[in-house]
């Protein structure tokens, strides 16, 4: 079948080809955020953090934590693992924070916000340190916001629920203690 040409389509469909929004954060459609987030989790952390991040990892002594004998550490390994490197979690948090405000970031803002929240929660639960200056109330709101995202994967959802219980005394509970 010959390719469709602009002659054959309704004008409103053609209007889409009059748009060329160059903002990388809007490349992915809302219904694709699940796949985007899953892809991010499967990506080696070192690959996403780039040269600056990799250098910082070396300085912070987290380089070893990023490599395992068989394959590099992914975001999923880091966020869902039992003993993540706090130094690397810090870098991921900063990476996510800057991605939220950077018009050139390739991460959709919502995905960056979820990553930001998850890195803080993982630090609090697995390393005993909350790597944020946010107060408990704001952090709890962030956790609730992330939990409400339909595209959050099961393992991340479990981590956020655990945070609700262990850091805040349950969903909607009073601000709890900081580990």
């Amino acid at each position, binding site marked *: 079948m010959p390719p469709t040409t*602009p002659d054959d389509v309704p004008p409103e469909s053609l209007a*889409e080809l*009059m748009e060329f929004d160059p903002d990388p954060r809007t490349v992915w459609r809302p219904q694709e955020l699940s796949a985007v987030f899953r892809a991010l989790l499967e990506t080696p952390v070192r690959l996403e953090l780039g040269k600056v991040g990799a250098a910082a990892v070396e300085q912070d002594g987290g380089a070893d934590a990023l490599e395992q004998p068989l394959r590099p550490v992914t975001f999923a390994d880091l966020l869902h693992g039992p003993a993540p490197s706090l130094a690397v979690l810090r870098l991921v948090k900063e990476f996510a924070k800057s991605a939220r405000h950077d018009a050139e970031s390739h991460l959709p803002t919502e995905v960056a916000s979820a990553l930001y929240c998850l890195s803080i929660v993982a630090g609090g639960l697995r390393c005993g340190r909350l790597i944020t200056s946010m107060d408990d109330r704001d952090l709890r709101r962030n956790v609730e916001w992330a939990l409400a995202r339909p595209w959050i994967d099961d393992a991340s959802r479990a981590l956020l629920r655990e945070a609700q219980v262990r850091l805040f005394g349950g969903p909607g509970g009073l601000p709890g203690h900081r580990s």
Partner: protein
Amino acid sequence: MSGESGSNSFCSFPTTQWTAIGHAGGGEGDAARRALGQLLTRYLPAMRAHLVLERRISRDAAADVLQGFVAGHVLEKNLVAQADRARGKFRTFLLTALNHYLWHRARHDGALSRSPGPGRHVPLDHHAAALPDGQPGSDAFDVAWAREVVREALSRMRAECERSKRPGLWALFEGRVVAPALEGTEPLAYEQMAGRFGFHSLSQATNALVTAKRMYGRCLRAVVAEYAGGDGEVEEELRHLKQILAGARAGSGSRRAT
């Protein structure tokens, strides 16, 4: 316009629209005839759309009108030579001239019908051809014109990808943006993109998509810049065409719907 248009086909936008208009209106000679031919090839679909969809003239009558307009006005009276960039868009000028021709012809046909004789052309419905006040605006004309602009921008982007040996970039743009818009297919999903183009990370895939979209944006702007004035006019024209396409009534310019 720079010489990067890849105008290697008869239907390509001529090298700088207004320069081509100048050549076309320049009188005799092969170059003038060639430039005029290119201009007419580019604008005929929009004029036909205006006559059929906006003025509700049958396709046969529209073909007859266009033939008469081109022969009697464009060629015989060297209409293009009267176009003046300072007075606005060329397509508005052309549309105004076409509407005037239509009006005069309808009056002439009316006179003929009152004194029947051997008809030389398909008679027009006087009401369909009547000129509305402030007549230059025509959605069908602009929609058809927008189709030409998009077609040319896509063609240039494809050519640029081939020239720079990046066929994958075109394939990505086609699968992600063009086919969904033109064929209603689902855009390529991230997993499909990763499998087909070998992306190893989200950032690679995102960067490739952004690169493709920016390249298309440049092509689109370059096409519009050939007939619009400065940057401000280019942006205004893009906004106008987008509004026209987004707000066009069903059937006003969609050949699929007619």
